[in-house]
């Protein structure tokens, strides 16, 4: 419950119901519940929505690049096979493992795009101070989809794959890995910046 307006001096914790005494915060400080440890209020140094919007825009561009450039090439006796993120999904479908394919597609392609896109929209609304259509629902989508956006995990899997393939043949990186790495960094930076409660309250203030 992070609000820009003053809270009542005492209120119940939103998680455990303990009685909380509010106090004045310095920029960067958090008010936490003494019983359950829930963060109740945080005073940001500055409006975080501009940074979120910038990171989300960068992320969307990187997402496109990460999806159109091959990530790595495997070479056995002169026969080469390179892959995009989608190649693995298609391969799994061809082999009849569509549930696994769906999971890979959702977590490495669809969820990152939806997460970045929805944050871009919500942060845009916060920046401009205008109530964009359905912005509350989009903010809800961003919260729900966040745990499914797993580009950094995909990146680690690529590293492990290279190590494994190196034992079997020649393997080398393609340009795509740069974009996947940058996209990972971008999505981790976003995860750290996004303050759901702040956004929720900011959206309520918009007219």
């Amino acid at each position, binding site marked *: 419950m992070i609000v820009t307006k003053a809270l009542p001096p005492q209120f119940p914790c939103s998680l455990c119901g303990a009685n909380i005494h509010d106090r004045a915060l310095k920029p960067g400080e958090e008010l936490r519940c003494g019983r*359950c440890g829930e963060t109740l209020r945080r005073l940001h140094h500055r409006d975080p929505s501009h940074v979120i919007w910038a990171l989300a825009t960068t992320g969307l561009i990187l997402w496109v690049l990460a999806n159109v450039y091959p990530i790595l090439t495997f070479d056995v006796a002169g026969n080469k096979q390179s892959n995009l993120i989608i190649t693995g999904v298609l391969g799994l479908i061809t082999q009849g493992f569509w549930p696994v394919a769906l999971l890979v597609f959702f977590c490495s392609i669809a969820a990152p795009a939806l997460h970045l896109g929805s944050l871009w929209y919500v942060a845009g609304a916060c920046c401009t101070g205008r109530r964009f259509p359905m912005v509350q629902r989009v903010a809800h989508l961003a919260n729900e989809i966040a745990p499914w956006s797993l580009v950094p995990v995909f990146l680690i*899997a690529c590293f*492990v794959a290279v190590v494994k393939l190196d034992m079997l043949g020649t393997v080398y990186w393609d340009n795509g890995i740069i974009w996947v790495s940058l996209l990972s960094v971008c999505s981790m930076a976003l995860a750290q910046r996004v303050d759901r409660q702040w956004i929720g309250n900011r959206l309520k203030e918009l007219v």
Partner: protein
Amino acid sequence: MTDATRLELSRALVVAGLILYVPANIMPVMIMTVAGEVAPLTVMGGVQELYDSGLAPVAAVVFVASIMIPFLKLIGLSWLMLMHGSDQLPRERTTLLRVLHQIGTWSMIDIFLLGVLVAVGQLGILASVEAQAGGLFFAAVLLCSLFAADLYQPRMIWQLASP
């Protein structure tokens, strides 16, 4: 959804996850054929292979992410389910639930690894990678534990413990 439904679903998913954990670890996740050599690989087999090639750090990462984390997550969730309604250690349980929620996604390494290997393992007789049923079970374990941790919410720990 009411909290009673959440609790019931969450319990069912943890039990399902524990059952599925067995085939996920016994059955091969993929069959790798390189230069005529056919090798079915279980999750543990993949770790063993990395370790044997002197890549202990990589083996450790895969072991922690794909074997230890799913197991610890299921055990941790089982404990939380058993403790539900008790007023013991609510703060510790809240922290545990948050941690379990965070670490679960790292188990996806093995599923993505399968995806990448299937993608580049399309060189016919020279090198091919075929997904196997173990992968399905593994994915099912992950989904069960992910949804279970999502359904059981921190505030449910505090409902009976609050004054």
